[in-house]
């Protein structure tokens, strides 16, 4: 995942959101989306750590590094959900939860 190791971002254990942005037609689409993702992440108080693999228009926003109290974490969560839910460019978003997978 491009950028999950960004120095100012938390790893998969912290709060994170996958966000699908509406794509734009024309050249430079990727750059435009990237800039839009950066701006949106900043507005939410998160860090855009980059596109999710090969999925165009999908970005991962993570909570900035640092220890937060449970109340602060909840506030960040609510704020992020609220902003992402009402933003016009956001087609879909989902908080990333830990999955349980077993070797067989």
């Amino acid at each position: 995942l491009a950028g999950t190791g960004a120095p100012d971002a938390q790893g998969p254990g912290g709060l994170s959101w996958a966000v699908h942005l509406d794509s734009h037609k024309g050249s430079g689409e990727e750059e435009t989306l990237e800039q839009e993702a950066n701006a949106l992440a900043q507005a939410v108080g998160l860090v855009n750590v980059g596109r999710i693999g090969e999925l165009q228009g999908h970005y991962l926003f993570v909570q900035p590094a640092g220890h937060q109290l449970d109340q602060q974490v909840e506030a960040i969560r609510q704020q992020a959900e609220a902003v992402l839910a009402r933003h016009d460019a956001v087609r879909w978003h989902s908080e990333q939860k830990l999955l349980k997978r077993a070797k067989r």
Partner: protein
Amino acid sequence: SVHFNDPKFPQQWHLNNRQSPGRDINVTGVWERNVTGRGVTVVVVDDGVEHTIQDIAPNYSPEGSYDLNSNDPDPMPHPDVENGNHHGTRCAGEIAAVPNNSFCAVGVAYGSRIAGIRLLDGPLTDSMEAVAFNKHYQINDIYSCSWGPDDDGKTVDGPHQLGKAALQHGVIAGRQGFGSIFVVASGNGGQHNDNCNYDGYANSIYTVTIGAVDEEGRMPFYAEECASMLAVTFSGGDKMLRSIVTTDWDLQKGTGCTEGHTGTSAAAPLAAGMIALMLQVRPCLTWRDVQHIIVFTATQYEDRHAEWVTNEAGFSHSHQHGFGLLNAWRLVNAAKIWTSVPYLASYVSPMLKENKAIPLSPHSLEVLWNVSRMDLEMSGLRTLEHVAVTVSITHPRRGNLELKLSCPSGMMSLIGPPRSMDSDPNGFDDWTFSTVRCWGERARGSYRLIVRDVGDETLPAGTLRQWQLTLYGSVWSAADIRERQRLLEGAMSGQYLHDGFTLPCPPGLKIPEEEGYTITPNTLKTLVLVGCFTIFWTVYYMLEVYLSQRNVASHSVCRSESCRWPQRSRKAREEGTELESVPLCNNKDPDGVETEREGPPPPSGLLCPDLLDQGDWSWSQHRSAPDCPLHHLSPDLLQGKEEQVC
């Protein structure tokens, strides 16, 4: 005629069963014809791959590999206290262990390249799965996944939004547009009456779902049944039966070799290896071609517990064994002459709102949807591949529900069997079940969903809120399918399995991948430290040069005292080994002879800063300065003690 010096090869019964002839994957004849997976890359998505071990190293593909747990390109497993991260290495060995290196074992596709994606050794999210499924998807052809949601008989889970999108994207854009091949293990929840239709990876139309059978061809105690299973191959059984012998890691308690690899985890990589053999002989097989070839070539065999049913198109399927045992010889021969199936056609019914109560067994709720000729006209869909049903059901105890689906032919699939351990009170919320049992059958006609409650009267009745039918298939007619079956059977003699026979392949698409390696924080820190040190050293050196030159400028000549270099060794000069240096203070020449104060100027090697290009000071350090009069040297340097040169 196949002989290898690998010490455990004779025990690899799944490759060549001498004890019970025929109970193996039938691969040796394929190897004899130089079909070994050459040119194909298989990636094991798991807990890492010890790629330095002798059986893996020569076939290892660093280009296809990545570590998503540490976010770096090296998928080397990290030992843990439970000695548990050998899983990916074992799977990799089954696929591509190098033969004839006197080390452990041989892989099914020992000529293929093997990559690793480390994913299962840390916190895992939907986005990480999505990245894994498309990682290096123009390099990796086959993704082997021997893992999945918990097989505890009560979990209903599978790829989430991003994982689903990545699987779909992989089959569209992966492998130059021919589609990534995703092989998944069906699950080990047999003891808990689990079923692989509750596993969204196994249930997905984009994956090849592989189950296990033991050496005797029976379903092992751990194996799960499901209607979406495509085929089975060998693995370990109970204690009396042999497990899979394969390469292992040599970290911690590992010896580099194991005779105890088992579970559906051991079966899926064998299938991945066999698919690699298919792709060598026909690289342009699409993801759907691979599924079709498996359906057409898997072999039904005698097993009275399996409840084989033959469908309208002549394919036999069992919930235990899918379409049967994978056979490398049949797969490769079929692949060699296979021309691509028509485009994928699909049909989606409207969302069918029911809101009907689900009665207790032996009664059942039956809902029906008729797919007409008109409905299919737009897509051209005529014969079926996967049939999927998405349901929303409320029920106080999910595990009491039983769901069956009947295709127009009457072919019945148990898409959602009851599970005694599943007491989830939330029912199903848009869960998609699928079946492959109607493969090749006509798409037109009536589909029946039959739901019943096998619990008792103590709980309130559940409700089927809504359901939706999705059909996948192609424009192939029943006659087309029969013709292809006939064609394949004619190729099973091996007559086309030589280099002289090659069907043309369309060129693949050029699809760019995301940028490769991103710098990790540790690398970044190191680079910053090195950078800081370099800048500091540069500034210091420039300052030193500047100050010394300022002195030169203020004292334009060497005054009366001549400044002399120590005499250099004649031998060194002649041999050209003389080092250039700017002596600051020296009272002896290199030979230890005291330097005379009076004497001839040195022939060369004298740094003359004020005569050199000021802007090229670094250049001046590495080249002999032109001869220059000594009076150009700083008087500071000329001053000194009696015996000092400068």
